[in-house]
């Protein structure tokens, strides 16, 4: 790279200022022509231009040409946020032979045009900000990016359909994957469904082959019943600590014959089966569902007699000819090194019990959540797909209530995106299995997807009732004879414009999708951000939908926001491609905006040590001073501000750079 000198002497500074219109985004609130004219008259400014789209090819070309022809050695671009286009303009400078860190951006869109209503004042503000930047760039130094090699392994966290898909893609590209799943089996929510909309294909038929592919794949290490405890490092070089909880069965020797379950001293299943949403019972020795992967049983120490009393003849041990049962199994900790991480931890469904008691869940027996009904209609579920209610009867009429815990400022404000469609699916299945009269209560019918509207049309033709109105209450208050002994739904039929009371025997609550309870912990562990609702935040909603603000960490599936299986699978593919693209490059470039400690003046007070969120600072006992690991430093600046002796300096944010900028913005021009 040719260096045109750092130009710190005032006389040889040659600055170019570029003011972007951003279409009308900036130009409608800022007089860009005037801004450019004023900038042209600022000290050391050789050229100042305005242009409709500075980020476009001609815009960038303009900058490059000026650098070459006018011998510029500093560039100030007044445009949008540096988050979006700093790499663009640094790149342009680099191509023209200027060190990219001589380029500085001024945000006159988000910080100015978009937040003001007075054109005159907004224009003056833009001029002030540019003047400050012009003074600041004088102090900029030529900086070099560093490169470090990348570890080619990938960690995938969460083994729902998203994690499964991503893991298989990466593994088949020849890279090694660690797939960490918290539950006993992979499969996530999809494994609980009988059919999937809109094609009604059998969930197990399309999912289980993928699950066993995961198990079989030589490039995949599958750790179920495990969680990531800790992540250190940075893009390309992460170190993760995985905690593997004991299931008291040796995974390597168990062949999944399930004889231990039959042999368990509890002759009848007696304990709540979480996998069936509590609709059936299981034994202490259990397997979540017949097609579980891995095909390995587990012992629940909370209910197992051996664990509870120490006294059990343990017939399970006797029957297992593989000697796989191990009551002494302990928690194991594994440490792995990976270059990229994909988070695919999925979602949880809204819990209506205490949060929305008006819908009667937990008060009346025959009120179900959608997930419970998924199990109820599942041929591998607690009733083998037969729809019988908790009281043993069959429903003559069913009410499906949409938007439970969605689109509501009191619960979750967002639309959960899949509930309309799965409600239609359940309406179809319930009608098919019971012949019941089925009523859907919806606010708006949302069926945007290939074949989705067609599915809705089919349901209409099947004679399912669609009542537009959010239900006010569900209870067992009967007014008319036909309401006696049944559940009554009170609702405004908003299309008819009147209030209705609809007696039913079964109510299905279409509960929305929300982030896991522990999403905040996971977020912190992986050092990423959450959107306002608590789902993980992507780097850009349109242009970087599977990246996060932390390099090397990608998102797939519902942990990023509610979505259906087709979108989840597509996103998982994208995340896999991003991870592979990163890894296959072999090296990462690190930004040079890191901090370093001036060894001379460091007093050894240790204030900075605990502050660094990336644990990049260590203490050299022998020399009684702190030191920053450049590879770990993310340039957040926390330590820089905190150091009492002012010994920490940060590239691109040196005192004279910041102070000169502040001084100028506060001066009167």
């Amino acid at each position, binding site marked *: 790279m040719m260096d045109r000198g750092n130009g710190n002497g005032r006389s040889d500074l040659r600055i170019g200022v570029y003011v972007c219109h951003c279409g009308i985004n900036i130009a409608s609130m800022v007089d860009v022509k005037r801004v450019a004219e004023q900038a042209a008259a600022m000290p050391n400014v050789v050229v100042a231009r305005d242009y409709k789209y500075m980020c476009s090819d001609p815009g960038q070309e303009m900058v490059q040409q000026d650098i070459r022809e006018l011998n510029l050695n500093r560039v100030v671009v007044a445009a949008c946020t540096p988050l979006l286009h700093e790499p663009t303009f640094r790149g342009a400078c680099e191509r023209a032979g200027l060190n990219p860190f001589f380029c500085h951006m001024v945000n006159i869109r988000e910080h100015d045009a978009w937040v003001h209503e007075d054109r005159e004042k907004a224009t003056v503000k833009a001029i002030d900000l540019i003047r400050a930047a012009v003074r600041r760039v004088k102090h900029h130094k030529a900086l070099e990016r560093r490169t470090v090699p990348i570890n080619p392994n990938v960690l995938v966290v969460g083994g729902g359909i998203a994690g499964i898909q991503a893991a298989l893609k990466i593994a088949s590209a020849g890279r090694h994957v660690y797939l960490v799943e918290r539950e006993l089996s992979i499969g996530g929510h999809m494994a609980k469904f009988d059919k999937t909309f809109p094609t009604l294909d059998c969930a197990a038929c399309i999912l289980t082959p993928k699950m066993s592919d995961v198990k079989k794949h030589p490039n995949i290490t599958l750790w179920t019943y495990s969680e990531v405890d800790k992540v250190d490092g940075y893009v390309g070089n992460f170190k993760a600590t995985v905690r593997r909880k004991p299931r008291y069965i040796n995974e390597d020797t168990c062949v999944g014959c399930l004889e231990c379950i039959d042999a368990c001293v509890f002759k009848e299943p007696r304990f709540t089966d979480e996998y069936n949403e509590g609709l059936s019972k299981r034994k202490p020795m259990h397997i979540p569902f017949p097609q579980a992967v891995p095909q390995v049983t587990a012992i629940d120490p909370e209910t197992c007699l051996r664990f509870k009393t120490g006294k059990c003849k343990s017939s399970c041990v006797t029957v297992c000819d593989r000697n796989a049962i191990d009551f002494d199994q302990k928690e194991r900790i594994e440490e792995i090194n990976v270059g990229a991480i994909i988070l695919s931890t999925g979602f949880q469904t809204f819990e209506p019990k205490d949060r929305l*008691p*008006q819908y009667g869940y937990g008060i009346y027996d025959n009120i179900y959540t959608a997930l419970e009904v998924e199990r109820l209609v599942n041929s591998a579920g607690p009733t083998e797909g037969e729809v019988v209610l908790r009281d043993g009867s069959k429903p003559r009429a069913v009410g499906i209530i949409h938007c439970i815990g969605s689109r509501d400022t009191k619960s979750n404000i967002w639309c959960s995106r899949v509930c309309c469609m799965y409600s239609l699916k359940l309406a179809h299945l319930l009608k098919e299995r019971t012949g019941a009269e089925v009523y859907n209560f919806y606010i708006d019918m949302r069926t945007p997807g290939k074949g989705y509207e067609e599915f809705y049309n089919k349901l209409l033709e099947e004679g399912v009732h669609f009542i537009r109105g959010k239900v006010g*209450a569900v*209870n*067992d*208050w009967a*007014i008319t004879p036909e309401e006696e002994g049944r559940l009554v739904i009170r609702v405004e039929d908003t299309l008819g414009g009147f209030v209705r009371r609809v007696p039913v025997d079964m109510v299905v609550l279409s509960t929305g999708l929300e982030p896991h309870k522990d999403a905040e912990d996971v977020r912190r562990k992986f050092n990423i951000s959450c959107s306002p609702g608590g789902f993980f935040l992507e780097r850009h909603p349109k242009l970087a939908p599977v990246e996060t603000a932390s390099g090397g960490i990608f998102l797939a599936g519902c942990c990023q926001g509610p979505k259906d299986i087709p979108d989840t699978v597509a996103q998982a593919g994208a995340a896999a491609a991003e991870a592979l693209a990163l890894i296959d490059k072999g090296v990462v470039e690190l930004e040079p905006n890191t901090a370093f400690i001036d060894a001379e003046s460091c007093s050894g007070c240790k204030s900075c040590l605990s502050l660094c969120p990336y644990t990049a600072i260590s203490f050299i006992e022998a020399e009684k001073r702190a030191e920053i690991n450049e590879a770990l430093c993310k340039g957040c600046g926390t330590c820089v501000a905190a150091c009492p002796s002012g010994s920490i300096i940060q590239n691109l944010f040196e005192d004279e750079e910041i102070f000169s900028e502040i001084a100028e913005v506060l001066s009167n021009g």
Partner: protein
Amino acid sequence: MQYSYYPGCSLKGSGRAYEESVLAVFDHLGIELKEIDDWNCCGATAYMSVDERRSFALAARNLAISERDMPESPMVVPCSGCYVTLNKTCHVVKDYPAIKDDVTKALDRAGLKWKNQVPVRHPLDVLMQDVGLDRIKEAVVKPLKGLKIAPYYGCQIVRPYAEFDHQIHPTSMDRMFEALGATVVHYPLKTKCCGGSMTGTAPEVGLRLVYLLLKEAAKREADLMATVCPLCQFNLDAFAKEAARAYGPVNMPVIYFTQLLGLAMGLSEEKLGLQRNIISAKNALKGAAAAAAR
């Protein structure tokens, strides 16, 4: 602890039994209720429908007097209508600076100052939170064994401001009655509005609501209904006969929760104002006691 006490118009008129039982129960528990000096009508729904600005000033006068005379004391308000109006005044003044200005000026003209520091609380809230079920249980000498109660909260005690219980499915009274030894029946209409003044202004509607509420309690085999509001009690008790004439026979006594509390603490029916019921609860109480004895 001392509380300031705002009775409101109903408790001095048709809801006298409520005042009698509230005062008796609080006195028995050793809690002082000091009536606010020269209080005025809270304004209620009706005033607010005509002139909102001044309705807040009207309500605020009571709050200002309470704050002036008993700055440390929360204000206890048994009537749900007054409770919601006074609470609303506190909230609205916080949320709308223009209304605050208005109210401050109006009070100023009368030489009153108000810092909006008096919490407005319902006796049910005070009994459940400040006194607590433990102390209540200790005071029980005649458990209400065998008595089946439909707890009726009505609307404005839990909505929209109260924070001491759920707005649609409150359980304070349920828990209290169970502590008194009674049985609480499942009553899905516990927060359905009684119709308020509809019994007077649109009788075909008001009476039907009264009928439905009473009928449902009867269907659930309650011996009586318990209320927390003088207007609910008035509607359900005084219009019961007319409702029965219009819609069908029903006989369901409705009494105040404080009367039940007082009975369990061994206070006399007379002292608690039970003789003021039009649909008498005495037989229901006797019947339950007899059933429990058997």
